[in-house]
């Protein structure tokens, strides 16, 4: 590499304000999320697991960026499209795959749903399908951290559609009053299932909602991993040091349907094509290549390594048994209150 190019790269690296290690870490998680997500889509279409699958392809930066650098004892409150947050928080691919396949070795033993990822050792609280529910619970976690005088933070993820729910507003109102240690990440992917954001609210920038609760709201390019990570990291540091909540709206887009059973034919093809040009993974790749941190060979090696990891995980869950049906009787109450078993 010519000396002048290397020097130009160093200047640009400084401009990102992030270390080489952070940039590579972010990119690795973006790539892992993309590859895993596309694999699950394919596996679902092959009929390899039941239910449906909620892909987040196209909006990986919104989940990887805020999660990277969190501590294990920080909480993330995801919804169903936050596979990237789980990957980045450090949930092993085997655990995520077991969840998607509803196998007995899944953290929920197969009880909830393929995309209800949750794993206590990494502080990922399992979501329910009632969107925004998790935002409220995440706010409760932050309330507890305040009472416990701990410096843990919560990062709560949701889509712009969830902000129509009353409980979402109650949670943010509460967080504003008590300056709770929480960062709200709104992934505005322009579509709440089939309802466009223009029919979900009378505003275009959902970060404006924060004003009503007395804390800052910022709208950012959700497909730019550097911007997303830096904005979130600043907000997290502020929350951790007692500065209160921030609402970050990430403008982004999901490439596929609400779930794999949705052909998304309510959207214009041109809209999709325009957003595909803003692919967050390719943009990160370009940045890292320009900075001299990534080469085609290096990327291919990374893809190979991650794919092998995914192959091993899928192979393992393919062989893993489901829980016995009687597992359905467990975990209703503590052991003190056994569930009645009807016999016929």
């Amino acid at each position, binding site marked *: 590499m010519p000396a002048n190019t290397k020097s130009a790269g160093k200047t640009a690296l400084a401009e990102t304000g992030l270390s080489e290690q952070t940039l590579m870490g972010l990119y690795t998680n973006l790539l892992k999320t993309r590859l895993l997500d596309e694999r699950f889509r394919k596996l679902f279409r092959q009929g390899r697991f039941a239910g449906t699958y909620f892909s987040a392809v196209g909006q990986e930066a919104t989940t990887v960026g805020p999660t990277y650098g969190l501590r294990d004892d920080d909480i993330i409150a995801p919804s169903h499209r936050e596979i990237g947050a789980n990957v980045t928080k450090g949930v092993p691919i085997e655990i995520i795959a077991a969840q998607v396949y509803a196998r007995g070795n899944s953290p929920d033993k197969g009880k909830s749903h393929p995309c209800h990822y949750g794993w206590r050792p990494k502080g990922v609280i399992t979501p329910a399908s009632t969107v925004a529910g998790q935002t409220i*619970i995440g706010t*409760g976690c932050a309330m*507890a951290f305040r009472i416990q005088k701990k410096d843990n933070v919560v990062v709560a993820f949701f889509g712009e559609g969830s902000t129509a729910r009353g409980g979402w507003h109650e949670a943010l109102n509460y967080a504003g009053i008590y300056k709770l240690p929480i960062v709200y990440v709104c992934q505005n992917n322009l579509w709440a299932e089939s309802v466009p954001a223009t029919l979900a609210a009378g505003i275009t920038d959902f970060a404006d909602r924060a004003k009503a609760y007395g804390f800052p709201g910022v709208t950012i390019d959700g497909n730019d991993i550097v911007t997303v990570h830096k904005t979130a990291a600043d907000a997290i540091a502020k929350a951790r040091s007692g500065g209160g909540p921030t609402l970050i709206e990430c403008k982004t887009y999901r490439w596929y349907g609400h779930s794999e059973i949705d052909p998304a034919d309510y959207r214009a093809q041109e809209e999709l094509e325009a957003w595909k040009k803003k692919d967050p993974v390719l943009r990160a790749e370009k940045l890292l290549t320009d900075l001299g941190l990534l080469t085609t060979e290096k990327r291919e090696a990374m893809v190979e390594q991650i794919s092998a990891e995914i192959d091993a995980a899928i192979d393992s869950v393919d062989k893993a048994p489901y829980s016995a049906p009687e597992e359905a009787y467990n975990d209703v109450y503590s052991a003190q209150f056994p569930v009645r078993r009807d016999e016929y």
Partner: protein
Amino acid sequence: MKKVTYIEAITQALDEEMARDERVFLIGEDIGLYGGVFKATKGLMDKYGAERVIDSPISEVYIAGGSVGAAMVGMKPVPEIQFADFITPSMDQIIQQMAKLRYRTAGQWTCPVTMRVCCGADVGGGLYHSQINEQWFVSQPGLIVVMPATPYDAKGLLKAAIRGEDPVIYFEHKRLYRWIKEEIPEDDFTVPIGKAAVRKKGNDITIVSYGLMYHRAAEAVTALEKDGISAELIDMRTLLPWDRETIFESVKKTSRAVLVQESSKTGGVMGEVGAAIAEEIFDYLDAPVTRVCGIDVPAVPFAPPMEHFFLPNADKISRAVKKVLEY
């Protein structure tokens, strides 16, 4: 032993549990500075501070959901719903999150929330301050539902609920707050969740009830005694999971049952109790299981004659008992 009212017993339980376990905190509307609209939390903010006795905004969704989140990271929340009538916004959090959390995470997380719900009629509260909606919750496995009828049980069940690992909906009846007094021990005690109390032994018929209606049933039992009828009186105390053994044992002995609840008949707790008796101990019955309930209208009407027309009372219960005995 000192005589205390039902509401004093509740305050004592909260105070003692907050003193013994720093994870216990309270959140609800008007519970701090004001001490609660019925004064159940009087003095607790002064004693434990505003971080453990939290005056919440009018946000039943958050009161319930925030409590779930706090419980997940090691706290023991005791949220208050000021009137059962206002619990509807929090139903999503109670049913979808609180009740299912242990199940949908396969026990990774538990939800030790004790939600105090002030309920009940016979206080002139009208349509939106008199409801008793325990039937909405007893259809949801994953929840514990309790309703004490006496100061002793009010204190003991609340302490047991707070010390437990399951989400408990704790219904307290506002008509009972200052109406009944009882001597209770000054030493620490709990009342086991899931166990009914046989309040009076009898041989001719079993009367099952809970909450305020337990007292109406007790009045009926006293009146029936004068007519030579020996009724066995059971106070359910826990409505989910309910004490099948105690009730079945009694009905097997008496062969007859009258079930009394304050809420409307349709879809109520006693529908479940009655169906279980029919399903499991039918051979022991000498007469149809009969229910005495609130009338099937949307809520308790306001004007006093209509309110009392709505509610079961000792006369209605006595007439039902005699009808069953004559069958």
